[in-house]
């Protein structure tokens, strides 16, 4: 039982009661009545909030539901994120922000629930967004305060370290938070720090891994397909033409390499505990591999490598990945 201080007196006559968010409901701007607490974040004018520190907490007042609720978050990285990052480091306005991913860990009601690898801000002025869904039970929302915590894991796998922007939470935008009654089975989700096509996310050989948030219930199957170009696009330009023969050789080598590899090993590291394990997968007839994650694992980092039939790992491989049965983006 959380200790209660008998003499606590936080209220003043000037505190304004704010209408809580209902379910369904959403908070999309900084002046949303439901947004009652910001730590390490500033209210947005056109979005909900921007993170300004490497640990942040948002508190939303919600009407306590009777049934589980899905909390949908949209995280955005844009040019303003880069501006804030520059200012936080006293850099010039035109200083180049390293094109690295931003890694965020998300807690709900004090419990780590998810992690997300965010793309760098697009150079064309558009935004990079990532969606995340966390399911909350009614009893978790005891008093009606939904707390969303954001921080950066202290330790990340060495293969990811160089790909992540230092102090990367600065400037990340929490664009909106919406609440929906939980109706469907919640599947797992993953993020690679790169834009995807429909359900598939690209996992380039560098950094070679991604982040998975397993489903809260039931097994989460992450499907991996080695990226092989069966047909190269027509080269355009002199440089592309000059490089074409070498590129074809490389693709051919990749196709040969993939055909020779019938097993894959995926390093799975818990974002919360750092516990590591290796998951061996045999190639399925369609050439994909499956990594099974249990619901209790929590968010994990995953890095797949092909295993040579002759022994050893092949690291020079791009992948596509998706969660089997995942909700489409």
């Amino acid at each position, binding site marked *: 039982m959380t200790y*209660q*201080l008998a003499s606590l*007196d*936080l*209220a003043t006559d000037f505190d304004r009661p704010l209408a809580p968010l209902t379910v369904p409901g959403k908070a999309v701007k900084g002046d949303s009545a439901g947004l*009652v*607490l910001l730590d390490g974040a500033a209210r947005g004018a056109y979005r909900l909030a921007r993170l300004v520190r490497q640990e942040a907490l948002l508190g939303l007042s919600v009407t306590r539901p009777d049934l589980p609720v899905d909390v949908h978050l949209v995280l955005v990285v844009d040019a303003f994120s880069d501006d804030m990052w520059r200012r936080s480091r006293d850099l010039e306005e035109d200083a180049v922000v390293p094109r690295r991913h931003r890694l965020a860990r998300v807690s709900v009601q004090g419990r780590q629930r998810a992690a997300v690898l965010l793309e760098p801000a697009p150079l064309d002025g558009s935004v990079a967004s990532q969606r995340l869904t966390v399911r909350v039970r009614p009893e978790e929302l005891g008093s009606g305060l939904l707390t969303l915590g954001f921080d950066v894991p202290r330790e990340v796998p060495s293969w990811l370290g160089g790909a992540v922007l230092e102090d990367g939470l600065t400037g990340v935008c929490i664009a909106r938070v919406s609440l929906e009654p939980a109706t469907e089975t919640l599947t797992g989700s993953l993020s690679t720090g790169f834009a995807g096509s429909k359900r598939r996310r690209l996992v380039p050989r560098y950094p070679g891994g991604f982040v998975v948030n397993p489903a809260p219930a039931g097994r989460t199957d992450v499907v991996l397909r080695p990226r092989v170009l069966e047909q190269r696009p027509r080269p355009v330009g002199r440089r592309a033409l000059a490089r074409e023969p070498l590129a074809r050789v490389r693709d051919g080598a990749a196709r040969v390499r993939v055909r020779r590899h019938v097993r894959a090993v995926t390093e799975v590291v818990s974002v919360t505990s750092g516990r590591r394990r290796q998951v061996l997968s045999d190639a399925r007839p369609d050439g994909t591999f499956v990594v099974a994650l249990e619901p209790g694992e929590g968010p994990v980092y995953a890095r797949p490598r092909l295993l040579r039939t002759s022994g050893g790992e092949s690291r020079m491989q791009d992948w596509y990945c998706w969660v089997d049965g995942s909700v489409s983006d």
Partner: protein
Amino acid sequence: MPDHPGRELTNFRSFCDIASGFWDTNVRRDPSRVILVEAMSQDLRVTLRNLSVANALRRIEPAELVVFGGADDDWNEVVWSYFDLDEIEQLCRAYGARHFFDVHRVVDDRVAGRRFSLDVAGIDLGGPLPDSVLDPLRFEQIVDATSCRMAKVARLDGGPEHTRRRARDLARSTEFARVYDALLSELDVVAVVSSHVDYNNFGLAVEAAVRHDVPVLFPQSTGGLKVYGLYPERQRPGSPVRAGLTEELGQFFEHHVWEHRDLLRRSADLTTYRSKAMLGRPSWWRPGRSFSSVELRGPDDRADVRKVAAARTGLDPDKPVVTVFNHAVSDALGTNVEAFPDLGAWFEATAEIARDRDDVNWLFLDHPSQSLYDATAFFAQVAARHTDRPHLVFMRSMDLSKNSLISLTDLVLTVRGSVSNEYPALGIPAIQTGWSEWSACGFTTVADSPDDYAKLLDDHITGLHDGDRMVTPEQVERARLWTWFYRAGSDVPSGLVQPWQLGQGDSLIDLLSVQMLHVESDADPLFSSLHRMWTRRDPVATRVDLAAPTERLAVDLGVVTR
């Protein structure tokens, strides 16, 4: 004009002309009397306040201004980063200083035995000056405090480096004391105006003033205009200069603030509400509105955020949390009554007590500015001695948001920190082991010895376990009234001073210029508040006459009526 962080003054010269003309017609002079004014801070706002107070006093007590300014190598290395003596002297001359001298240079020349002649109001400060008659023990305390500050240590260790430093500070202190004694004994001094009362350069002037029955006006570096008065007849014999102020403020608060609590209740609540939102905070409070606001609405929010904060810090949310707020360990040692020999001793003793009390959580927080005051990693050293006690958690205070701190803290421990007036206003008890401006106002517990402290701590922890109210509703009300008194009742808004938050750049200079050129000076609150304070010997300048009957006070404050 050299560049300084935040101070690139475009119109400083023209402002000085304007100020000179303004003050020329707004003060009265008497060449036989002087007001001694300190100008030894790099921040123009500090000197501006000192000069404005001195000139306001000249409207009552005609006098000339004698300004002592400057800084030495130690101050420039340890404390200041952009001290500009020329600029400060220009400001002082514009405000009518008849004499301006670099007291640090005088002291250094005297210590070095260099011959010089410097006539200040008829006194040759380069000539032989009698020894000071300051109490030797008090003198040694001031020397020690200065050495600790310059060395950035909690206490001197007697080693070669500290011994050398102390010898240098002793020599300087001896000359400071001689110079100040000479000025105060040979001149007809109306008052000393000083922004600080600590260390050898500031403190010895204040001590000399008190010894010569000369009042000290003590402007504060925050808010609009806040001025304390230290009156020789009100000093506690044998106690530091701030002790008498503590007692007087307690009485003043009782008679003029608590007495009007019904009238002031709404205002006190509004100030507390604004304080939670980081509005109107004192200049030294932790900054960062995104991180330092109190947004918890009540016990339910507190419980929810407490769980999150406890998970982060490794504390047990089901047990009471005692939060120990470390001080900047070399900051102004020995300037008020304290139960422990120094700030570091209190912190170390508290950690020792905590070792055997695992029935509660202990959260030890560093001071946000400790790097400016400590070169020994004092906090980390203490933490390293207690790694075998998991119920003691040592953290950087700026790693925790104010919401987290309020959600976790069930008892505040400090010597004299402002957390001991901030937290009781929210119903969280505080134990102080030293006196402060508010410690006699009835909303904190003050220990008068280490044994008393240990007992009070034990009693409070027992009370927390038993679910007792360790802060009464009256104490919460007193703490909120103190917040109002500090930020409003004793904060004088004057166009001739401007709010501290305005900074010390062009905005300040331009607003002052406009005020002086285009606003008639009659009834400026700087003048009326100083007049009231001086003639009544009040311990603090007030925004309005707090001794007025309730009906008139309501009018003067413009209170909201139903």
